[in-house]
């Protein structure tokens, strides 16, 4: 519950009259746009196809420059959620709750990208859109788990209850990620070895550069999306808090209307 006056709060809205952008996020966005263009040239044109060894991927290696970075971004997002959830349970301030919620939503986007790129890779490599690859399978389970997190947030009305329940769930879900991952891995290890995302460790030159470049880009993209999503979440809580002052005044006015005043 903030005790700031309505005037101050109106000022906060004035800071972003046309959305959630600020000068900094605009600069970051512009840099990202240019960087993505460069990345596409490096990944699709400049870097050579994979040609060494019997299980060489040829041009298919290029999808790895997207797939591996977005997978890393989605794990990062859920790690941030777990951290923010723990911080919320410790500090009980709504900023941490906003961070946890925003990071799950952005993480879901990256999870979908991970699943989509993995599936496309599988289609060319194995000839099927879905193979029970351990990583893809555990990512799919993680996807459903965090959809459940968002469903819980939607189902709870009280802001403080929602924050607390979501924080507990955010923490437990993150504990589940490695359990699900290793059990699925162990389950599938009996059947096959070829796994998406297992790159030749001796990869070098432009290929390595494209991969690292992709990773940096994906993390920056995550940060840029988070800036906007977090601000939106924050403004929403401020609107709720602004409603509280009005609601308190209205509630007290009932007493006057009722005639029980002295």
């Amino acid at each position, binding site marked *: 519950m903030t005790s700031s006056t309505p005037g101050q709060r109106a000022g906060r809205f004035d800071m972003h009259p046309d959305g959630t952008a600020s000068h900094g996020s605009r600069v970051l966005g512009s840099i990202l746009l240019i960087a993505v263009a460069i990345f596409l040239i490096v990944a699709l044109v400049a870097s050579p196809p994979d040609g060494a060894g019997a299980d060489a991927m040829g041009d298919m290696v290029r999808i790895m420059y997207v797939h591996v970075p977005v997978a890393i971004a989605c794990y990062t997002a859920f790690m941030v959620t777990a951290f923010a959830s723990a911080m919320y349970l410790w500090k009980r301030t709504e900023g941490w709750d906003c961070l946890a919620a925003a990071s799950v939503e952005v993480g879901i986007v990256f999870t979908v990208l991970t699943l989509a790129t993995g599936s496309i890779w599988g289609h060319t490599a194995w000839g099927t859109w879905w193979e029970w690859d351990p990583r893809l399978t555990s990512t799919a389970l993680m996807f*459903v788990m965090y959809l*459940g997190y968002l*469903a*819980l947030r939607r189902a*709870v009305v009280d802001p403080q209850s929602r924050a*607390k*329940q979501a924080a507990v769930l955010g923490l*437990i879900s993150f504990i589940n990620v490695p359990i699900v991952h290793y059990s699925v891995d162990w*389950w599938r290890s009996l059947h096959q070895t070829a796994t998406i995302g297992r790159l030749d460790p001796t990869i070098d030159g432009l290929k390595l550069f494209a991969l690292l470049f992709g990773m940096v880009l994906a993390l920056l993209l995550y940060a840029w999306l988070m800036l906007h999503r977090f601000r939106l979440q924050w403004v929403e809580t401020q609107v709720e808090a602004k409603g509280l002052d009005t609601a308190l005044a209205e509630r007290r006015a009932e007493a006057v209307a009722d005639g029980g005043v002295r």
Partner: protein
Amino acid sequence: MTNTTLRSVISDARLVAGKDLRLEWRSRVTLNQLLPFALLVLVLFAFALDPDRSVLKDATPGLFWLAVLFSTLLAIQRAFAVETVDGIIDALRISGLDPAGIFLGKAAGIALHLLVVEAALLVGVTVMYGASPSGLLLVVATSIAATAGLAAAGAVYGVLAAGLRVRDTLLPILWLPVVAPLLIGATQAFGSAYEKSSGAGWRWCGLLGAFAVLYTAIGFVAFEPLLEES
């Protein structure tokens, strides 16, 4: 945790579990609804897979645990439905019962109901699918370990969803992905128990036990804040 707190947690757990068993004795929900449901699922699997004995026999471990999983969902919903009517959640909060004790009691109650369901299912797959286990000890150990894990995770997610209007639809999507490792582990362990090669079976069984311990620990910590907000 000191010795006295642990003792009060256990006595609270016994009180809550005893109450749940008494509730079952009076209402017969598990006996009259859960058991028939579990056996019905076995029959439905046969319809879905053709009543070809060899297919059903091969798939027995997985089908058995799927039937258990679906029954567990109903058991969790029942276990927390009785606590969310007529102000009982409030009564629990001010009762003086230790939340960890309530968690342990609810989990134990769910686990006992599940063990009964599993015993019936075991007879069911033997009679209807013609599958008889060769490693009976592994079957029993797997059932106990998996049931403990299912019940502990069930009590955590059950209380999380308990107070919500959408609890019946939210619980499956929250809880099923979490217990997917249990389905994998229990199916694999049963697989080796039914195919006479017990080597990897015991390793999976150990994984199930570890899961149960982990979720019991999570329940001890998480049940209190979740009960508070449900």
